[in-house]
């Protein structure tokens, strides 16, 4: 693990202050959206809302480090003639002027995960069986239907909007209020769209700006932060009661989601050389792809041209 800038005390304090502000604002940012890039469980990446380079995770002793023969042909090790692959580096990186602050927040979220979120989620998953937790997750997904529906419309992704509407009706009526997801079955095959306001802004040409690693919320950018705030108004429960109810529901959702993904963050961290950079990069790649390919995978061929590396 690289020796990274040690977050100064100052930035830490700033972070804590900011956290208080966020909390005081009634968790103005809703975790769900962040866990959206996250909903991609297996992705070593985005998933990890809470993340941070912990000192050295001591993993099990490794396979033989012994000197092995050279892999492949010697000729393969020549200089690269056209190192213009660098172009792409420009495309998928993000400015990080707040790095010391961000790293401190990454650290904070890491601790939050290991000391609090994970133990609670583990206890919870011992009491509640997995199918029930998947049901809860489906229920919350169904509840946030307006976000995906409206944003699909805003992005002129009418097929996506129609599919979301169909999913909402089917899952609410035949899926016991959204606990089940019959719409995703083979027969109906309506796929959940990934649409949020940050993505919509991106589709309209708003750039990502720079990187922000929020406490609690994890990876973001100014554009996506505005997106999170915008999406709050599309979340029904905000209109249904006092904010404490809403906040409580979000916190429960977070624990429930975490219980379904224990191990993902750990393996991401284990795989990374610098977990902070790994999370940042995964977030940027994930968001750029979401904007480029709004409403599903790209048509064949186009993708290849765009990301030919």
């Amino acid at each position: 693990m690289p020796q990274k800038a040690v977050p100064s005390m100052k930035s830490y304090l700033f972070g804590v202050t900011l956290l208080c502000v966020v909390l005081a604002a009634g968790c103005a940012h809703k975790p769900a959206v962040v866990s959206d890039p996250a909903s991609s469980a297996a992705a070593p990446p985005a998933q990890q809302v809470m993340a941070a380079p912990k000192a050295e995770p001591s993993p099990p002793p490794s396979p033989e480090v012994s000197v092995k023969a050279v892999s492949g042909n010697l000729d393969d090790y020549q200089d690269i003639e056209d190192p213009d692959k660098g172009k792409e580096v420009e495309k998928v990186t993000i400015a990080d002027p707040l790095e010391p602050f961000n790293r401190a927040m990454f650290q904070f979220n890491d601790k939050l995960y290991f000391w609090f979120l994970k133990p609670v989620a583990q206890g919870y998953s011992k009491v509640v069986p997995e199918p029930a937790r998947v049901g809860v997750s489906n229920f919350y997904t169904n509840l946030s239907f307006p976000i995906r529906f409206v944003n699909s419309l805003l992005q002129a992704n009418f097929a996506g909007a129609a599919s979301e509407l169909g999913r909402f009706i089917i899952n609410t009526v035949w899926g016991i209020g959204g606990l089940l997801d019959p719409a995703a079955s083979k027969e109906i095959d309506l796929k959940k769209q990934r649409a949020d306001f940050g993505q919509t802004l991106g589709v309209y040409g708003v750039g990502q700006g720079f990187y922000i690693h929020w406490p609690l919320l994890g990876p973001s950018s100014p554009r996506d932060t505005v997106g999170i705030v915008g999406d709050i108004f599309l979340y029904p429960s905000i209109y249904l009661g006092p904010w404490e109810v809403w906040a409580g529901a979000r916190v429960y959702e977070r624990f429930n989601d975490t219980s379904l993904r224990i191990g993902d963050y750990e393996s991401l961290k284990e795989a990374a050389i610098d977990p902070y950079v790994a999370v940042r990069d995964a977030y940027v790649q994930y968001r750029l792809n979401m904007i480029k390919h709004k409403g599903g995978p790209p048509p064949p061929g186009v993708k290849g041209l765009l990301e030919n590396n």
Partner: protein
Amino acid sequence: MRRPLTFAITILMILLFTMAAYAGVPTDTVQANVNKVLDVLRDPKLKGESAKEIKKKKLRVIYEQMFNDVELGKRTLARNWNSLSVAQRQEFVILFRQVLEKAYIDRILAYTNEKIVYERETMISGNLAEVQTKVIMASKEIPITYKVILKDGSWKVYDVNVENVSLVLNYRTQFSDILAKNKPEQLLEILRKKVKGQ
């Protein structure tokens, strides 16, 4: 006059058929390798902790057939590749493979019976292709794309995209971040430590 025409049509037919077959080779290759991995994972004789090492050994052999280490390493370092000496490059490729093995082996060994669907193949150029697959799990589907290159007559994987996040790009960002502030030797040292598990 008739003969040349028949000849031309025959040639055309042959070309068309071979091209059709050719278009499927990247997918076939990936699928064959993935199936080999699944065979090892599902082998009833290799159950339990004791068989773990045997499984790992078998998977290593398949990995070598399936991936092109050097290509993967080169693309991960990108323009930084040239700032390493040839000996450093060789060490890097081996270390990077070990880092990846350590990082993902347990996840792969934990595989239970998820279904894998081969969705689409895209030719990017004569010797580059993408094979899009999907792993179908109880509560979700995970898109995994293999990027393959034609080397010495066979298609080898040089990048894997999971949920649209490229493994190569993800490590590239991390390595270039390190190399912006450190010498290649220090990067190798970091990797050595990582492999040793410190």
